[in-house]
């Protein structure tokens, strides 16, 4: 096949995207000396992709598979949020977050609810502790890792070389460079400051006066997070599902509008 024909054939292939290719397959693919470009030529890779779809599926299917115990998760009942920022204040106090940094933020958006009618909605965001965390994948020193027991995406500041690649990789912009630590810092579901010391709630969930932040074990059918996520009458969504990161932070509303 001459180069022109090859190019034509390459262009005719359907782009299936790289988002749904799991890390292991990516690694295997890279080991074969090929580049992940978004175009998969040949039967092998195509079948790998479809198998990945079977295993991980779309958002509503994967919520029933919880590899961690406890599988820490947070549900944000976003229309209860009034942006009082008590969660942010508690987080800063508990985890010594500097004024230029953040482990959680609150965003604001204006929803159209009728002609010339708008509704304010606040949206708290924190590390989504993804099942397939892009930040962990890109870290060259394994300074950031997924805790094998709890699934929490944690940091080992001693290993961090400050390359900030994880900050770019994070789909949620929930990482910042901490000048004092000389390392990237992020939400660890208060693992170091609270959970490892026997507390059951994160500082933000404990501080919220409006019952927005529901924290718990998604592997426990008795927990509130499990019940909310599996409530068929509720709309449950995740932020930026297209990245394929499979987050463990879920959003819903109580319908207070």
């Amino acid at each position, binding site marked *: 096949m001459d180069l022109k024909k090859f190019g034509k054939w390459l262009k005719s292939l359907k782009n299936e995207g790289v988002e749904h290719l799991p890390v292991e397959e990516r690694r295997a693919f890279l080991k074969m000396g090929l580049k992940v470009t978004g175009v998969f030529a040949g039967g092998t890779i195509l079948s790998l992709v479809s198998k990945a779809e079977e295993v991980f599926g779309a958002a509503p299917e994967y919520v029933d598979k919880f590899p961690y115990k406890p599988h820490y998760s947070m549900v944000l009942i976003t229309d209860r949020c009034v942006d009082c*920022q008590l969660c942010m204040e508690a987080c800063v106090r508990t985890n010594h977050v500097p004024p230029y940094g953040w482990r959680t933020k609150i965003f*604001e958006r204006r929803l159209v609810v009728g002609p010339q009618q708008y509704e304010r909605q606040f949206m708290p965001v924190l590390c989504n502790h993804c099942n397939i965390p892009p930040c962990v994948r890109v870290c060259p020193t394994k300074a950031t890792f997924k805790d094998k027991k709890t699934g929490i995406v944690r940091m080992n500041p001693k290993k961090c070389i400050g390359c900030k690649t994880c900050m770019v990789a994070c789909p949620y912009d929930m990482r910042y460079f901490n000048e004092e630590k000389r390392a990237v810092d992020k939400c660890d579901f208060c693992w170091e400051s609270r959970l490892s010391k026997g507390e059951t709630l994160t500082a933000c969930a404990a501080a919220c006066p409006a019952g927005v932040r529901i924290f718990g074990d998604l592997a426990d059918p008795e927990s509130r997070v499990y019940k909310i996520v599996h409530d068929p009458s509720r709309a449950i969504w995740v932020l930026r599902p297209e990245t394929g990161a499979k987050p463990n932070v879920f959003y819903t509303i109580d319908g*207070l509008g």
Partner: protein
Amino acid sequence: MKRWLFLILLIVFAFALYQPLWGQEEEEYPEEPIIFTKPVKAVVFDHKKHIEDAGLSCDDCHDELFEMAAGTAEENEDFNMKSLYEGKYCGACHNGDMAFASNRKCTTCHIGVLGWQRLQGETKVKEHHH
């Protein structure tokens, strides 16, 4: 004697000028929105909306539900959502009957820290222009 009469007349006249006894034509109210920052940041109250749109008059809320002086209610320990649900403060009207219930449409009044900062920014810009 004449001087006394003159003085009394002057006082009465001054009082009449200051506050007409009958038919207060237009009710005056603060144009700037009232911002509550306790117990949470931040809640907005717009006099204009409640008077022009909802048709309330001063004495519908003052002085029984709220003192005239802004910020007085905030100092009370019971100035919270629970009291509103019990019909105190804003909850006297915001009960789902006269106006939308206090446990609904949170962000209509709760503008948050972000909304508060935005309002402060606007006043700063205004002051700058003066």
